[in-house]
Each structure stands twice: as structure tokens, then as C-alpha cells.
């Protein structure tokens, strides 16, 4: 009973929040609504017994990603309303809904037709969700995990390089650096 109430409350709130993100004209409202929606999605993860993923969702999305967006928005003019000229509204909405339904049918048809056996059972006696995720992550998924770490490192370096101006120069060459004028 509790699960049903929680599911419906969370789903209604998430849909409202993401509707604000998509249809709002002010980008600050959209960003705040996106942060709220991320928190409500972590509520679904807790309902489904994936505590580790719920905590990761809160930490990564509403912590890191939203901070990144907030800092990125300082570069842009966010006080103005977003002007958008849109043509062909009916085609747009019908196309997007049809394609979403098609994707779900493609994904869920094999699940219904074949009885999938679980490779890595998620419930073992006396072992919590975080522990078992660690066990599977560091045995079967070790190489993807390390690749994800390298990918995060590469994206961090590229983010720093792209935004900051003077990072392509050598910082130890002081004469060259001072000749170039003011530091930004």
C-alpha cells in the first residue's frame, strides 16, 4: 500500500517537474525544476531497492551536474526569456510520442517473449545492495569500470581546457606570459 502511494506521488511530481523543464521559458526555473526531478527519481531507486544507485543519483546529478550547470549559466544571459520560434507543432508532438512508444516496444518485447534468467542475482542472504554491487562491479564489470574512470578523467581535462583561456600555454614561461598582457 505504501509502495503504491509513494509510486504515484513520485511519478506525478517527476512528470510535473520535467514538464516545467521542457515548457518553461526561464532557464533558471528549468534548472531548478530539473534538480527537483532528479531528487524524485532517486526516490524511485530507493523504492526499487537500489539504495546505492539512489545515493549516487543524488550526489552526481543534484550535486555535481547541477553545480556544473549553475556555473555554466553564469557565462550566459539567463535573465532574459528564451526566445524560440517553432514550426510544425503537431508533427513534432506526434513524432516524438510515436518514437518513444516504439522504443519501449522494441526494448520490452524480448523481455516478454523470453524468460530471462538472472545472471547476477540481486538478493543474497545477509548481503546488502551496496555490497553486492561492489562485488559484481569489481569482478565482472572491472574493465568497463576502469574505462569509465579514464573517460571521466579525459572529460575533466577537456572541460578545464575548453573553458579556461590560457591553459594551452606553458605556465613556467614567465616572460612569454607577461608579454601577452593581462591575465583573465
Amino acid at each position: 500500500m505504501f509502495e503504491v502511494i509513494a509510486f504515484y506521488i513520485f511519478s506525478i511530481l517527476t512528470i510535473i517537474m520535467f514538464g516545467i523543464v521542457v515548457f518553461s521559458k526561464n532557464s533558471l526555473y528549468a534548472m531548478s525544476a530539473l534538480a527537483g526531478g532528479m531528487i524524485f527519481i532517486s526516490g524511485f531507486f530507493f523504492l526499487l531497492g537500489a539504495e546505492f544507485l539512489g545515493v549516487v543519483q543524488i550526489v552526481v546529478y543534484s550535486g555535481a551536474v547541477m553545480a556544473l550547470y549553475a556555473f555554466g549559466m553564469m557565462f550566459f544571459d539567463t535573465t532574459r526569456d528564451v526566445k524560440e520560434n517553432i514550426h510544425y507543432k503537431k508533427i513534432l508532438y506526434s513524432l516524438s510520442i510515436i518514437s518513444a512508444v516504439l522504443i519501449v516496444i522494441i526494448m520490452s518485447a524480448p523481455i516478454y517473449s523470453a524468460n530471462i534468467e538472472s545472471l547476477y542475482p540481486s538478493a543474497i542472504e545477509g548481503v546488502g545492495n551496496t555490497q553486492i554491487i561492489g562485488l559484481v562491479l569489481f569482478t565482472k564489470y572491472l574493465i568497463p569500470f576502469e574505462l569509465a574512470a579514464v573517460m571521466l578523467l579525459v572529460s575533466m581535462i577537456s572541460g578545464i581546457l575548453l573553458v579556461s583561456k590560457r591553459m594551452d600555454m606553458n605556465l613556467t614561461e614567465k616572460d612569454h606570459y607577461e608579454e601577452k598582457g593581462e591575465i583573465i
Partner: protein
Amino acid sequence: MITLTHYLVLSVILFSIGLVGVMRRKNLLMLFFSTEILLNSVNIGFVAVSHYYGDLSGQLFAFFIIAVAASEIAVGLGLLVLWYKKTGSINLDSLQMMKG
């Protein structure tokens, strides 16, 4: 009783909201927000399937999707800031350089 179908339907609704955003938005920052919605709706589907089939692989895929989303935003926002410094606009139509 909440079944797997409920979660999949919710995932469809969120995914279609994100798709409407991707097709409707002309501001590039808003386009990034919509891609976040798409990735999150897929995450809900993965975790629901993983819970109802008792398999942990779905949760691990959702974990990797979160990692991919984080790095995508870092690179994308860097490119967006560069583009804004160059042209002074983050409208999608300003990216149209080839008149086809």
C-alpha cells in the same frame, strides 16, 4: 500493487517528455536539460527491470549511464561556453553555417 509495467509506462512518459524537449527547444542549454531527462528515464527502466527480474546488471548499466552523462555535460558545457564566446548566442539556429 505496482508491477513492472507501471515503471515501464512511467519511463515511456518521461522519455516522450524528453523527446518533445529535444525537438522543441532551440536553446542549446535547454537541449542539454532534455538529454538529461532522456538518460534518467532510461535509468528508471533499467533499475525497474533489474528489480523485477532479480538481476543486478540493470543497476550496473544505470551506474555507467550516470558516469557517461556526467562526462557528457563536462565536455558539452565547455564547448557551449566556447561557442558563446565566439558568436554571442546559444541559439541552435546560429549553428547553421552551411546553407543547404
